[in-house]
């Protein structure tokens, strides 16, 4: 049935792991926004949640680095990181192998994916789940886009992947929800960690909220790197959600740079009920 929910959020490990070092008021504002996102997700009564992530060399390495990967298991594990470091205990996360298989076969019609019967979630998936499904009771379909090891997934192929995900989600009887998770500008795990280019972020989020495909596809990695750090390569995850909901407006519920979390923290949803946007392409 048609996609029941689509949204985006940040996943930086500091959001949970360094929560005690943050400005309390800023942290609380972010946590409330995550709470709001959880309520919206729950209200959509999903049978499963596709997470479009950009993992950080936890499962996928240069010996076999997929442009796109999709999980195909009945359960997963996470976090792969030290639980004390991340502030999230190790747990088992439910999947849905049958649903994964049907989605993967449909996606494979137009995009080429690696499927994975094992997957140890890193903070890129665990931080969103920690806030959105704190009881780990919603089956997760993990997906990954290579935003880390060049050659990276081209932006226009991330768009094609988003379209393929949408067709797949609409083709199954289950109520499928979708969330994309990544940083916008940031310099994670570098000496510049904490740096955030707020105006760059606000421009990207403006384009994202208007589903401006041409504008979003025009970001070149070399320029993004200079302006917004290597973390900005993760805009692919936000764009995949745009592609899956092309023509529907995005709502930015929260945006605030929080340097100790090393990212401009973002919470957004797509208004799937709104009249289609006039094409900007």
């Amino acid at each position, binding site marked *: 049935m048609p996609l029941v929910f689509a949204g985006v959020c940040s996943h930086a490990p*500091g959001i949970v792991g*360094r929560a*005690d*070092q*943050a*400005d309390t*008021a*800023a942290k609380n504002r972010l946590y409330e926004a995550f709470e709001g996102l959880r309520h919206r997700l729950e209200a959509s009564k999903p049978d499963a949640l596709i997470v479009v992530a950009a993992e*950080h*060399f*936890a*499962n996928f*390495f*240069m*010996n076999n680095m997929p442009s796109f990967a999709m999980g195909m298991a009945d359960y997963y594990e996470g976090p*792969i*990181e*030290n639980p004390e*470091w991340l502030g999230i205990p190790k747990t088992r996360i439910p999947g849905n192998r049958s649903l994964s298989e049907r989605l993967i076969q449909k996606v494979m019609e137009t995009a080429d994916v690696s499927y994975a019967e094992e997957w*140890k979630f890193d903070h890129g998936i665990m931080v969103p789940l920690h806030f959105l499904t704190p009881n780990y009771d919603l089956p997760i379909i993990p997906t990954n886009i290579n935003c*880390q*090891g060049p050659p990276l997934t081209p932006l226009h192929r991330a768009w094609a992947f988003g379209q393929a995900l949408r067709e797949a989600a609409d083709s199954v009887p289950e109520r499928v929800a979708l969330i994309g998770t990544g940083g916008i500008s940031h*310099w*994670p*795990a*570098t*000496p*510049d*960690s*904490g*740096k*955030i280019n707020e105006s760059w972020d606000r421009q990207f989020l403006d384009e994202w909220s208007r589903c401006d495909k041409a504008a979003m596809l025009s970001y070149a990695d070399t320029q993004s*790197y200079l302006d917004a*750090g*290597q973390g900005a390569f993760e805009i692919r995850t936000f764009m995949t959600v745009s592609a899956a909901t092309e023509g529907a407006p995005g709502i930015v519920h929260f945006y605030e*740079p*929080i*340097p*100790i979390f090393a990212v401009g923290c973002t919470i957004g949803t797509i208004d799937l009920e709104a009249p289609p946007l006039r094409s900007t392409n």
Partner: protein
Amino acid sequence: MQKFLFELNRDEEFQARYAEDRRGALVNFDLTAEEQQALIEPDIGLLFHLGVNGQILMHFAALHSIEWQDYLQRMRDGLAVHGPVREGVYAVTGYEGVDAHSTRLGQTSDIEEGA
């Protein structure tokens, strides 16, 4: 070198072997003497200089109980001592630092000092 750290980060059994015998854990990897030594110390700054991706190095630092701010400082020190990242594209941009940045945004950041 990154392959070693990738394997180490994702495998608790391998971490236990590394804890017992750091040099022994390296034998199956194609590494220079400099790389081996940097991994055994561990010399976070040198590893960063040698081109290890920060996302991989971050967990290696955590494994050695190196606090976040100390980890960032060691990378900065590595670049100061050894020069820019030898392989890969990373260039430092002259960031003002989390404390100054937070203050400018009206946030207080309660960072623990030292390791």
